């Protein structure tokens, strides 16, 4: 571990963080895609404003319905399903990345669940790919999925303490070297 320097020598202070890229002029195909998904999802979903992947936020309970509507609208390809931990606002954000085998556009279906004892419907009925991805999300975040065919840990041992990808996870087994940034 590098020792704590008293005062950093006169290295140039890092340049100001690059200003976020100017929002690209919305090309028609992108807009058309967003409308198509919005129409498919109906009123239950609200478009998310974050930069990057076009995303729609849904109630945790409405996930199964939204997934079925997407599936019928032709989105037959679930890239993956995972969760993002936001301990500050006390929520776990489920992210379902859907796309089409025929088209090139992808979108994200978001749902917020409480950080403790979260329980959501399993989408393995809609997309079989969700089966293993949900097992991994359970393994890493501790979110349970109702009527999932075989909900077990997929990567870690059955008796592994805790769920590693949560931000507040403390690894008791290995002395994880905390980086001195």
């Amino acid at each position, binding site marked *: 571990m590098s020792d704590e320097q008293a005062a950093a020598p006169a290295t140039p202070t890092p*340049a100001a963080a690059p200003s976020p890229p100017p929002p690209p002029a919305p090309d028609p195909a992108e807009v058309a895609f967003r409308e198509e998904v919005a129409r498919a999802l109906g009123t239950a979903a609200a478009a998310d404003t974050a930069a990057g992947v076009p995303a729609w936020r849904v109630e945790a309970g409405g996930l199964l319905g939204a997934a079925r509507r997407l599936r019928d609208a032709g989105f*037959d390809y679930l890239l993956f399903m995972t969760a993002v931990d936001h301990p500050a606002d006390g929520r776990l954000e489920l992210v379902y990345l859907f796309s089409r085998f025929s088209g090139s556009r992808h979108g994200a279906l978001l749902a917020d669940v409480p950080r403790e004892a979260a329980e959501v419907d399993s989408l393995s009925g809609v997309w079989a790919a969700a089966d293993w991805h949900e097992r991994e999300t359970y393994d890493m975040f501790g979110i349970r999925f109702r009527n999932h065919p075989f909900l077990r840990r997929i990567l870690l041992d059955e008796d592994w303490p805790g769920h590693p990808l949560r931000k507040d996870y403390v690894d008791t087994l290995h002395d994880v070297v905390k980086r001195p940034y």
Partner: protein
Amino acid sequence: MELTRATAAGQPGTFAAPGYEDYFVNMGPQHPSTHGVLRLVLKLAGETVLGLTPVLGYVHRGIEKMGEAMSVLQFTHLTDRLDYLSAHINNWGWALAVEEALGIEVPERAQHIRVIMAELTRLASHQLWWGVLGMDLGAFTPFLYGFRDRERIIDIFEKTCGARLTMNYVRPGGVTADVEEDFAKDVGAFLGYFAPFIDEYERLLGDNVIFQERMHGVGVLTPELARSLGCTGPVLRASGVDYDVRRARPYGLYPRLAFTVPLASAGDSWARYQVRIEEMRQSLAIIRQALDAMPAGPVRAKLPAVLNVPKGRWLSRVETARGELAFLLVGDGSAKPWRVKVRSPNFSNLAALPEIIKGCRVADVVAVLSTLDVVIPCIDR
């Protein structure tokens, strides 16, 4: 994991006569042909496989957790350790995610180098796949021929990037360093050398009647199951679904390159074999085009000292030799990503194995696993 009949088989009910005790055999985690540390719990009735349950996680290193503790530039070297047979393409995928997030423009020459390196990696990966497929079916010689040709590519990588397997060469903003001066000569020599050898591969294994018998009709993957499971890559294209990220969502130089995406429809091991052999020929054509049109110029874009990932969610999708690799990069404005999710192609392809292997023989498990061409570290991350 306490192995009960339910947990192992995953499917309730037994096939054989009443009072017949299910016969479980562990193929792995230490087994000559599981391509890494993968344990398959086979439920057998004699030689016939009734059920198969993969047990994963033996090579889990927590790459996604490490991604949250490292800067964007440092995580690149971890992506080589995902699918160790397509290091360049993994690096490229991560570089695309970061470039999209930070809005970095990559110089033209770097785009050319990236395509050539990616296609060379795909070739090297398919050569290794072909050799190991031969060995899994009992013929040892193809393994040596596959590695003999792969060594030529690895030498090119060693000369250019300095490493043989963990390249860490393609970086956000371009590539680490310009190629060697005799890079064009070496790659040109390789293209000329390897073209006839694909035919030799065909003659040695493809035309062999024993090989054909072992491949035809074994492990049939229907297009519906493949779509639903999210299988991608040669496994999906062998079942007739025409989906290749290089065509569906072009990136880098691919829009300007002329190449066809090989397709088959049977969905069995023979179709997967044919698709990959044809892909090797296509890769040769792509490298030739990219090499001839390579311009001079810088190979790295000017990057700020600290790469802060702005707030938001970014996704990059690339086509590795095994399927679609996607990186989800969630930023919160600091130098370290808030969440990194790696979508592994092998994870979904392996999910198809328990369904397509029912009723096959023990020897077919090895054959089908070899044509699915899964790499275990990419599954376990």
